């Protein structure tokens, strides 16, 4: 069965609009019943003692719902629950309904490791959707490799990693950064950059890649300054002064969490006008703007693969379903969308492999394509990252983005970029 059909009915709410004389879809409308009817035997689809019964398959959701990271991870939890609901509504995976067990990582890496272990060793989850920060992923990675689990990791991250047991549904650094830099130099004629970041691995590595690209690949461009702030820092006046004095063409900001709010509010208060000053960020999604306030960041450019305002049928349906489930006010950011991909990709892979076995899933993953992806279309690369387009959006007053640029074709994921390390 091709994923073509499935893409149609992945999203129940869209049926109506898509049904318009699509033969494939009329077939797929009946597909759920079929799926459960000819459900393969448990013995066949589960040879390694995962938590799979004739009617159910158990997966785990592992995010921080308490502590500082809960701010960011809530969206991912919501997206994953939505995806699981929708899949179940269509008869589940290999004829089995998905049952999820949620654990709280509590924004604490050792806790993530503990809970990951619990989900694999005790609950025998067939797949785990979770983690947000690199630190939490690094903490659970050995667990997944030792107990041979499958993690779907939603966040854009620094790369330099590749594991049989992880599918990275977010972009790795080069995918997210390079296209944006090229675009800004090309269209804004920017020559000078000021790099900012929160003080941990992702911003530092990303800025490293950005710097290398600026200095080695962009004609006549240079970096005027690079600075890092403790996580949760709320005072940026000093660096803002430095920016005012060095007058860079582009402020390149990779500040995360609560610091964002302080940073952009203080930028605005300091009279830096985003309509004149180019600010390019890879860390601010619609979720963050919720806290920052649209009026404080309007005019800034963000570079990532998804924006809630994307105009395509998949996304319309996704946003509608999301709002139906979690309320019309909740916004959807890049990571939230990537988290939504997780369960869907897993389902497609499982049905391609005809099995829940981790090894079979891992082996079957490369080449799996999800045409119903809200961001349009994604395909899993041999390195377990996703082929995806990169887009630049400009923040609006209402907290949404206007997509001003999108790469012509899918950008290849390259977690170990030569010349950027």
């Amino acid at each position, binding site marked *: 069965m091709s994923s073509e059909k499935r893409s149609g009915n992945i999203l129940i709410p869209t049926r109506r609009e898509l049904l318009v004389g699509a033969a494939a879809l009329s077939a797929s409308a009946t597909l759920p019943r079929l799926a459960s009817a000819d459900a393969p035997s448990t013995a066949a689809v589960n040879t390694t003692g995962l938590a799979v019964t004739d009617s159910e398959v158990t997966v785990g959701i592992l995010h921080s719902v308490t502590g500082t990271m809960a701010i960011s991870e809530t969206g991912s939890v919501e997206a994953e629950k939505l995806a699981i609901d929708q899949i179940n509504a269509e008869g589940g995976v290999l004829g089995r309904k998905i049952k999820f067990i949620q654990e*709280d990582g509590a924004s604490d890496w050792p806790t993530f*490791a*503990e809970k990951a272990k619990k989900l694999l060793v005790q609950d025998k989850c067939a797949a785990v959707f979770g983690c947000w920060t690199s*630190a939490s992923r690094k*903490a659970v990675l050995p667990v997944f490799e030792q107990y041979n689990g499958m993690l779907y990791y939603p966040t854009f991250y620094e790369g330099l990693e590749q594991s049989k047991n992880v599918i990275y549904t977010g972009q790795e650094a080069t995918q997210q950064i390079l296209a944006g830099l090229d675009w800004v130099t090309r269209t804004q004629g920017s020559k000078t950059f000021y790099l900012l970041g929160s003080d941990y691995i992702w911003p530092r590595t990303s800025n490293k890649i950005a710097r290398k690209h600026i200095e080695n690949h962009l004609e006549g461009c240079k970096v005027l300054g690079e600075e890092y702030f403790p996580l949760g820092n709320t005072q940026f006046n000093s660096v803002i002064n430095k920016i005012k004095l060095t007058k860079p063409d582009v402020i390149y900001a990779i500040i995360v969490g609560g610091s964002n709010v302080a940073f952009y509010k203080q930028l605005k208060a300091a009279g830096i006008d985003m309509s004149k000053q180019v600010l390019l960020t890879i860390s601010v999604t619609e979720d963050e703007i919720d806290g920052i306030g649209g009026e404080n960041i309007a005019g800034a450019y963000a570079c990532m693969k998804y924006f809630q305002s994307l105009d395509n049928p998949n996304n319309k349906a996704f946003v509608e379903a999301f709002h139906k489930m979690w309320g019309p006010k909740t916004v959807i950011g890049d990571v939230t969308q990537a988290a939504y991909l997780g369960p869907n990709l897993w389902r497609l892979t499982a049905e391609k492999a005809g099995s829940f076995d981790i090894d079979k899933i891992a082996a079957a993953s490369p080449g799996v394509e999800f045409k119903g992806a809200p961001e349009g279309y994604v395909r899993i690369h041999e390195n377990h990252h996703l082929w995806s387009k990169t887009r630049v959006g400009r923040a609006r007053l209402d907290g949404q983005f206007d997509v001003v640029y999108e790469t012509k074709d899918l950008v290849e994921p390259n977690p170990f970029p030569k010349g950027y*390390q």
Partner: protein
Amino acid sequence: MAMTGYRINPRSLDLIGFALIAVLILVVFPLMLDVFRLNLVGKYLTYAFVAVGLVLCWGSTGILSLGQGIFFGLGGYCMAAFLKLEASSVANTKIQSTPGIPDFMDWNQITALPYIWMPFKSLPLSLIAVIAVPTLFAFIIGAAMFKRRVGGVYFAIITQAVAAVLTILIIGRQGYTGGINGITDLRTLLGWDIRTDGAKYILYFVCCFLLLGTMFVARFIQMSKLGRILVAVRDQEDRVRFSGYDVANFKIFVFCLASAMAAVGGAMFTLQVGFMSPSFVGIVPSIEMVIFCAVGGRESVLGAVVGTLLVNWVKTSFSEAFPELWLFAMGGLFIGVVLAFPRGLAGLVTDQIIPRLPSGRFWSAAAQPNPAPAE
């Protein structure tokens, strides 16, 4: 500060209490729990080292340190450093631009092993460092503070600030420390794979025996004249001084000892959990560990261990049952204990239960607080 009440024949009470704990962790848990849960208990027990240290430092001497996480962390990092070097052999790190150094160094364009990492190539040196580094650090802080007679709340808050500084440094100097990720993916100890179930059992028992040893040392000190002097320092510092004792030295000693104990815990944590994270050096875990100790009874070695097990068990089971609401329960627990039993579970036993029981010996021992099994 609460005062030690008068116990009926404390020694026999202790012996039986110790026996109970020993049986519990050496026999009951291994039989009752699967390896995953046992490994969890093992993790809790590493916190118990800190709690025992706090009993001496805070309960007996009245020095409240909100920075014990520092020493737990340093101990853990020293252990992790050794394991990490072993894990990042040239063979394992082929894909790096500089094979043979830890991955996080490679990510930060460090091309040669920094000098501070050299000692951790040898296990003996590393084991020495596990104790020595944190203890030395504690000595510096202690000497600076106690010689200047900084005490009470001031000491607590300064230790907190030190913890904050250290966290920022570790995270900021990620090329040398692994940054916020900590030091992850530790595999073998001298070629012995510490991730297998067998290894987990062995490490668990090693941890247990070390803990029992630590408890014994702590108890021995409490019983000695030194122990009486520490209590005297807590309640009547001036008089101790005018009895010709150099109070500062005693405080420094007990603070260093507590730190060393914490460090051992940290090292055992690294071995059992397989990585070390800067989140331990921070303020939150430091305060949590003080709370473990308070729940169990800040003056009782046994109480501290039991309290640690209890709080962590509650934490784990609540957060598994109500991932989104468990903080309410934790907060409630802390407040409840502080209000209801100022001297923790141990106090509850010695003040409330024993006096109400018929003739002392047998009962008083049996009435040692039984930890809820971690299940």
